[in-house]
């Protein structure tokens, strides 16, 4: 993730103060997120549903 994209996403998330006071930590967080997302495989079944399963509540 390039610096401009990282800063745009950080500001969109409301992290202006963190960006001003702890820019290295914001950059490290962005890198962690990008690295971990890259390691995940997509589900093998295009119709796979998420866990936990969707359940109708008592109040529906």
């Amino acid at each position, binding site marked *: 993730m390039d610096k401009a994209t990282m800063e745009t*996403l950080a500001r969109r998330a409301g992290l202006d103060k963190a960006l001003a006071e702890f820019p290295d930590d914001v950059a490290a967080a962005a890198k*962690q997120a990008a690295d971990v997302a890259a390691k995940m495989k997509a*589900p093998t079944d295009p119709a796979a549903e998420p866990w936990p399963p969707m359940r109708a509540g008592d109040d529906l």
Partner: protein
Amino acid sequence: MNAGVSAKGDLHWLTVADAAAAIAANTLSPVDLMKALLARIERLDPRLNAFIRLDAETALAAARVAEVEAAAGRLRGPLHGVPVGIKDIIDVAGLPTTAHSKILDGKVATADAVCVTKLRQAGAIVVGKLSTHEFAIGGPSFDLPWPPARNPWNTDHHPGGSSSGSGSGVAAGLFPMALGTDTGGSVRNPASCCGIVGLKPTYGLVSRRGVFPLAFTLDHVGPMTRTVADNALMLACIAGHDPLDSGSAAAPAGHYAAALERDVRGLRVGFVRHFHETDVPADPEVTAGLEHVAHSLQMAGAELKDIRLPALGEFGAVNRIILQSEAWAIHGPWLRSRPGDYGQLARRRLMAGAFMSSGDYLQASRRRKEMIALVETALSEVDVLLCASSMDPACRIDISADVERTYPRQARTPFNVTGHPALAMMSGLSSGGLPLSVQFVGRYFDEATVFQVARAWEKASGTDKKHPPIV
């Protein structure tokens, strides 16, 4: 009770079961037990930092009440008069829940968490609140209001986390049992580093109400003890449906100690070798320890079979995406307004969720369901899984590069992702005198079989008799 142990003044190594039995038989005073432990805490905790807050006066007063009740034959339950430590993200009425952080501003809990209520109903006495990694994610850290806990086997080393004080204190004989929480391995990591028994129960088996959340769909509360039998006893006291916890399972609490002394002949054990052989190659002493456990179970009559699951790296990625996305939903407001009140590690780890998309979260949640199916398939072929917990003995706590390198070298996150019960315990000691570990994993709500296999290993190896040399 082992009268010889108490006669020598070694009350601090009494098991939960032995202490409870002796108190019930009026051969051990809960006050004497509490005083012995408080004296040990006073002597050792300045080196261990297991406690954030010791509640000595209240604990001693409760021990006096327990003594009167025991003398009158009025036992509250199976833990009557036995001290317990509570990780400081779990509410104890009248005490602050700090989560080892400035952020919560010392807010005092007005009610006990459900798991604490259940322990008290069983007769346990809360001795204090225990160190954790900040909000169960950021640690070990030296930039927080309290120092990090240390490993009693060697205080220069990390005790594991995030239930650091729980692991350190149980191993050091400061209290015989503690509550921990486990979202990515945080009961089993300190159990592994400190050589005790730590269980992450089936997801939903123990109520999370009154526990500060890290990630809603991954959080578990679990027992930490020095013996397998104590772990089963503690679980029996805290398990059960809570209608006010939306993640609570409807399954009835089980008979967790039912198979403890049953032998393992004919039991099918699936050995997940690729976790430590190829996914994350383990320290050779860890590998040797795992082989020794497998061989020992085989010699006792268990059938061993190799099992393949998805790679650890993929389990880890799914765990991290879900964990950090859910944690961001909780911590976002504070990270926006008070980023400087977090320690650096928590700040970095918690802010990562801000950079994950809804698509990342949903893909991880969909992949999670497929991973659950794969582990379920494996557990239809065998009764229990055997695999690594930590790939290394505990590293030095003050070398952050070592902590960063070894922290992800583990095989615990798969079972937070899938929710299966998983127990970590000692497999032996390294040449450097630090605990090595093994993990047993069972079918949903079949903690009894996990305990059965763990107890078989404990009996064969005597791990319950191995204590750190700290005095």
